[in-house]
């Protein structure tokens, strides 16, 4: 015990200095390697694109500044519609999906038929491509010619997105609910809470915290999928951009629409990252 103790006491300073110098050297070397490899990869890709035979044409048809200026205000207008649809659909999805998840985890026999319906709902609407749902509902519902049913393509598109995403999101909720440890339910029941109070005050708060990152992830996806309603007519960003593109045979408006999406989805993705880092029970 004596020997190593004395040795470490004798030379702590010099060893520390040495180690810190080594750490700094390693950090410098890593930074240099990262910088060099970035230059090689990004520079190589840029060179490949810029020297390609078609580049002058592509620059003109995809990245035309005048086209951009011309189309941007209307594409932005269209994008507001995307945002509005997104907000309404998101709110509806959060509520409907939670109801479906709660029905599916509830074991009471009285709810059996509703439980079957909820399962079918999830299986069908999650199992059909969203684009098909938009198409079927957008053209199918008006074809019924029933009094009182919505005919606005924006509303119908929103309904299709809500159906599709509530299927996905209810499964996220359900996974969260099932991930809360049995001991939590036991403890809540043991202090005299009812099943419903246990769900409301103990299980759900923990479940939702835990699934917040995947929930947000689904909302990034929803934000993008709003563009799918364009196939039944509403003049949202992609649709507007397509109209410009059709008129002038120039794809720049589509790039403009893509950039607008990125402005929303990149910050959302960073939030997801941060939540994933915190994660856990909190």
């Amino acid at each position, binding site marked *: 015990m004596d020997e190593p103790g004395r040795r470490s006491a004798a030379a702590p300073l010099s060893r520390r200095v040495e180690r810190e110098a080594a750490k700094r050297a390693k950090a410098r070397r890593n930074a240099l390697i990262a910088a060099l490899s970035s230059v090689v990869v990004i520079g190589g890709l840029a060179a490949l694109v810029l020297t390609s035979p078609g580049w002058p044409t592509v620059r003109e048809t995809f990245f035309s500044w005048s086209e951009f200026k011309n189309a941007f205000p209307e594409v932005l207008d269209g994008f507001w519609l995307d945002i509005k649809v997104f907000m309404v659909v998101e709110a509806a999805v959060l509520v409907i999906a939670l109801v479906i998840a709660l029905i599916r985890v509830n074991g009471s026999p009285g709810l059996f038929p509703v439980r079957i319906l909820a399962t079918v709902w999830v299986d069908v609407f999650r199992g059909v491509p969203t684009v098909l749902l938009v198409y079927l509902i957008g053209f199918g519902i008006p074809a019924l010619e029933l009094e009182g049913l919505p005919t606005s393509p924006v509303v119908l598109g929103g309904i299709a997105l809500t159906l599709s995403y509530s299927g996905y999101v209810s499964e996220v909720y359900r996974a969260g609910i099932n991930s809360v440890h049995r001991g939590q339910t036991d*403890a809540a029941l*043991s*202090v005299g*809470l*009812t099943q419903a*109070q246990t769900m409301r005050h103990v299980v759900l*708060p923990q479940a939702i915290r835990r699934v917040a990152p995947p929930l947000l992830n689904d909302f990034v996806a929803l934000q993008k999928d709003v563009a799918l309603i364009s196939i039944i007519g509403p003049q949202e960003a992609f649709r507007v951009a397509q109209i410009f593109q059709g008129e002038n045979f120039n794809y720049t408006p589509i790039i403009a629409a893509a950039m607008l999406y990125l402005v929303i989805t990149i910050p959302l993705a960073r939030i997801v990252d941060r939540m994933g880092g915190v994660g856990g029970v909190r």
Partner: protein
Amino acid sequence: MAGGRGAGGAPVIEVKGVTKAFGEREVLHGVDFDVAEHEAVALIGASGSGKSTLLRCIDLLEEIDDGDIFLDGEVITDPSVSPVAVRRRLGVVFQAYNLFPHMSVLQNVVLGQMRAQKAGRREAEEEGRALLARFGLAGREDDRPDELSGGQQQRVAIARAFAGKPRALLLDEVTSALDPELVGEVLEAVRDLKSEGMTMVIATHEMTFAREVADEVAFLHEGRIVESGPPAQVLGEPRAEETRKFLARLLEAGRA
């Protein structure tokens, strides 16, 4: 099992012929057992002998297959009895604490009071603070459970179980998940409850503690109570072969 006990009064908990199986595996085979008012019964036995299951059955967290359980002379295992109402009259402390991680320490203690007993927030929080102080947790009210040591968490769990002014407390190996140096503070809290006459069923591996605090020790072996009586007799001069073997194994492991 009644009679001849100093602390004994009317039975608070009576377990009669309770049988419980999980699928094919029968965990309790006709357990008879009762706890008088102000009495502490230590339930000892190897892991898997059914101690936890028995406590869970008493709190109606498990449904029994046969037999009956009575609380203050009323049957509680009848399908017509509301389990919620029964659980409000009992308190449970779990081996793994099972505190609510998304709530503060104080919220953990008052949740049952506020939601189940419909107490006002002010009143419930006042009582909760007093309880926490009593178990040495003054100043930790606003912490999250994961900021506390295991011993502190288990004391919060005891305060939470006690907050509902239960007729009896069921303690399920409350020190088994703790580092050895934290066991003492939790046992001190249990001792404190015992000294004020709390009726308790204590499933435990701590024989020294059982000897000290329990009025009666019941030895559970393969789902049956093989032997029960005063601690000095069951732990000192066990009559049943199984009890002797169990105690000998504990002695080897240095825990008796």
